[in-house]
């Protein structure tokens, strides 16, 4: 914490509160404790037998096993990507466990009441009580949100320990379950969509995930249904030397709507742990998906020891007209973040949005951003990225905006801002812009001065200074999503948004 100690001189334009909040985030990783629980492990290392074992443990049909083996064989031919601005120590893929589940989960409990109390206590401590109650404990201002309910799928190391509100969701036709359950219960949907957004051989980490994913969430929202509550998955890594490889598949059928939230934490350990996830979202005609993440994996200690290596492939396919997707991410954890939630805007008039706050401190490294692939006519995309870098951290925004020749009259607006706190860190911007038709308009700004001029003008006219006005405008649309986060760190995330804006003007 040397870079951010109390004697740190606060620069003009950087609020002391900003510095202090970042400091408080960095020094105290709240979720670093460990649950002592008897675990069952697959043998260490990775080979075809392990892949088969994972498939067997999940009681998967033959086609799924073959799918995994195909991915594994492909993976053996691949190399880790090296283009990100990340200094990644060599990862020994044989030194990890690829499957770990609490012994009490060997026989899957029939209902939440039967789940091992230790597991329930773990989630309770994280602020995620696995009870179908009206209000989530620990959320400030919960009284005002009396009618807000959240269905939770809780993933502990390699297995889902339970999913709440399943019965009630089923009444409106929404399927919300673990992916392993979906493979068994809804094979047609899984077969049709799994790997259709992120192909098996998409990239090194996605391919690895395809071979060894153990659990994750599955969501299907039928045509015309507005999902009656927020859905969320909480990922917890607990076991040592265990990688977590989750797979999430969300399908929003025609005219439907769903908001999905994801949270993640892990105990403090001196050794690194791997996390390679794949999230696929299919959005059909007129449907809308909001996907929000508060990523708070253990970031390693002040000397950069330990922490999660977070390699995530997230992609949404707006497959039909007027489909809409919105990614919101608050990235505060992980020693290494390699993550580019992307939108394929295939349908005409489809739209994609990406709002990101990435905070790195100490020795954390983040290379994150988005891809907006405009294929359909009149497609819209918007990217707002805020990076805060402190300590010895490196924070990179990497993005692609691509306007294909047929994506006529499309529009993109990108804004990336970085804030450095201390002189040992780095903040970088690597945008790729490819425009292949003239009727589309693409704007990339790395200054905040061009945030919606009309709104700015409105605020300025009422006596706010520019920084206040910009903070208000940007916070306006971020807040809308962040407020919806039901996790106990929702407030934390909101604080992060606020601080990310201060001092970022000019």
């Amino acid at each position, binding site marked *: 914490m040397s870079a951010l100690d109390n004697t740190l001189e606060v620069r003009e334009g950087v609020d002391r509160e900003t510095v202090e909040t970042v400091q408080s985030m960095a020094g105290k990783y709240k979720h670093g404790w460990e649950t002592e629980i008897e675990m069952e492990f697959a043998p260490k290392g990775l*080979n075809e037998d392990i892949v088969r074992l994972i498939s067997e443990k999940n009681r998967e049909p033959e086609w799924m096993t073959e799918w995994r083996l195909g991915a594994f064989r492909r993976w053996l031919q691949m190399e880790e990507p090296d283009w990100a601005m990340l200094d990644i120590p060599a990862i020994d893929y044989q030194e990890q466990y690829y499957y770990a589940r609490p012994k009490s989960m060997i026989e899957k409990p029939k209902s939440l009441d039967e789940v091992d109390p230790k597991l329930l206590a773990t989630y309770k401590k994280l602020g995620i009580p696995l009870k179908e109650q009206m209000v989530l404990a620990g959320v400030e201002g919960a009284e005002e949100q009396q009618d807000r309910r959240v269905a939770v799928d809780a993933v502990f190391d390699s297995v889902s320990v339970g999913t709440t509100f399943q019965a009630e969701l089923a009444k409106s036709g929404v399927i919300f379950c673990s992916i392993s359950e979906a493979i068994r219960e809804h094979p047609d949907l899984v077969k049709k969509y799994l790997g259709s957004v992120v192909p098996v051989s998409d990239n090194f980490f996605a391919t690895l995930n395809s071979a060894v994913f153990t659990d994750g969430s599955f969501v299907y929202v039928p045509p015309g249904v507005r999902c009656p509550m927020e859905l969320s998955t909480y990922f917890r890594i607990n076991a040592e030397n265990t990688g977590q490889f989750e797979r999430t598949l969300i399908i929003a059928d025609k005219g439907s709507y769903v908001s999905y939230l994801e949270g993640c934490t892990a105990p403090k350990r001196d050794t690194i742990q791997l996390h390679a996830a794949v999230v696929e979202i299919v959005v059909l005609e007129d449907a809308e998906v909001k996907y929000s993440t508060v990523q708070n994996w253990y970031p390693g200690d002040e000397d950069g020891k330990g922490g999660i290596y977070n390699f995530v492939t997230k992609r949404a396919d707006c497959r039909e007209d007027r489909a809409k997707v919105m990614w919101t991410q608050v990235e505060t954890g992980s020693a290494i973040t390699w993550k580019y939630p992307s939108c394929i805007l295939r349908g005409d008039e489809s739209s994609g949005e990406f709002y990101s706050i990435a905070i790195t401190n100490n020795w954390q490294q983040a290379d994150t951003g988005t891809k907006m692939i405009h294929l359909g006519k009149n497609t819209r995309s918007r990217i707002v990225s805020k990076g805060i870098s402190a300590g010895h951290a490196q924070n990179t925004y990497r993005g692609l905006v691509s306007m294909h020749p047929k994506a006529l009259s499309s529009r993109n607006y990108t804004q990336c801002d970085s804030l450095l706190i201390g*002189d040992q860190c780095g903040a*970088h911007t690597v945008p790729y812009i490819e425009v292949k038709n003239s009727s589309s308009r693409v704007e990339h700004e*790395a200054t905040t001065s061009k945030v919606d001029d009309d709104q700015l003008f409105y605020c300025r006219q009422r006596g706010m200074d520019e920084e206040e006005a910009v903070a208000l405008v940007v916070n306006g649309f971020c807040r809308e999503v962040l407020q919806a986060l039901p996790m106990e760190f929702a407030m934390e995330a909101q604080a992060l948004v606020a601080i990310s804006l201060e001092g970022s003007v000019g």
Partner: protein
Amino acid sequence: MTAKAILGHRAARRAAKLEATAVRLEALQLPNSGQWLRRAREMALARLNHMGLPDRRDEYWKFTDPNTLLQPEVLPAKILDITDAAMDFVAFDRLKIVFVDGVFDADASDDLSSEGLEIVRLAEAGASDIHWAREFYGTLEAEGQKPVDRPLAALNTVLATDGVVIRVTGKVSRPVSLIYLRRETDAEMILHHLVRVEEGAELTLLENGPGAARLNTVTEAWVADSAALHHVRTQGRDHERRAATHFFAQLGAQSVFKSFTLTANGALSRNESIVWLNGNGGSAHVAGAAMGDGKFHHDDTVFVTHAAPDCESRQVFKKVLRNGAVGVFQGKILVRRAAQLTDGYQISQALLLDETSQFLAKPELEIYADDVKCSHGSTSGEIDADQLFYLRARGVPEEAAQGLLVLAFLAEAVEEIAHEDLAEEIRRKLDGWVSRHN
């Protein structure tokens, strides 16, 4: 068995690339020259062997295919009856140095000894054993190979047949004007210039003319403390010529470097500018206006390194594209830890006049100092319908209105030229292009 145990594709690709490079370089004939120049060429050759020749799969060549710039045969380029390219700056009092198809033309050039500045041809300096240039030739190019390989520049250091070596110690009254003419349809021009502007001195360097069917030029410039170098270049209008240029500039404290390039047509142009701000309070402006109609691929690649505090840099690049023309911008501002109080600005904009043109951009920031002001913007789109309507509503005919808006769009880049009369000359050329292409 791990993934790493298998021979990586990347390693295999690199091995294949280096092998192909070695084969290709083996066949090269180094130009005749004196000892020090020969040594510098051999060192560059070693660099080149180490990095390999570029191909489309290299990140730095993602948007531009280097093949036609590298292949042994020069693709012939028709010589158009265009006199104006050679006529650029004709009204200016200047010291003319003329190369025809890359070969020095003494008759057409002015007397080099008359100017109160030290200026010789590279071929002459290279023949002498003790010329000052031997300490410098290829050194900035070598430094510019990090963090990104620039193999075409190293190739130039190996193969350059001539160039000019200039040392300026005071204020030079008239600009030095390098004029590149061409006579053959398949000639190649490989020139390498060294420019040293000593403390407090000032030089304006002009370059114009089509040059050759294919050209590869490197300029290495040292701008000492409180010195100034102004560079204005027009690249000729021969539609089929291919050009790779590198301008390396190292700046001292309180120095000024301004470079502007006008490109109208040409099948392929890759203009790289590599600038280091090494002294406090330096200022670097790199700008370009490019207009492409039809088979035109124009690539501006700029790398500005802020290594000292309190420096300012600007990159302003504008492109007007139509009929399938492709514009590329790769710009980077690197701010090192020591470079506090940096003011970095970068803008790249394309005006696409029809549906078939393309703009590909990668505007990058890499910042390691916390008290800096860096911004970049990049936009692409067609002519603003509202603006067009405004002019039409006031009775301006459609074509004229469009022309006006194109000129207004390009104006910001031209404003980076310090000398108003040179800026005026460039505006006249832009006017001409717009009226010809409406």
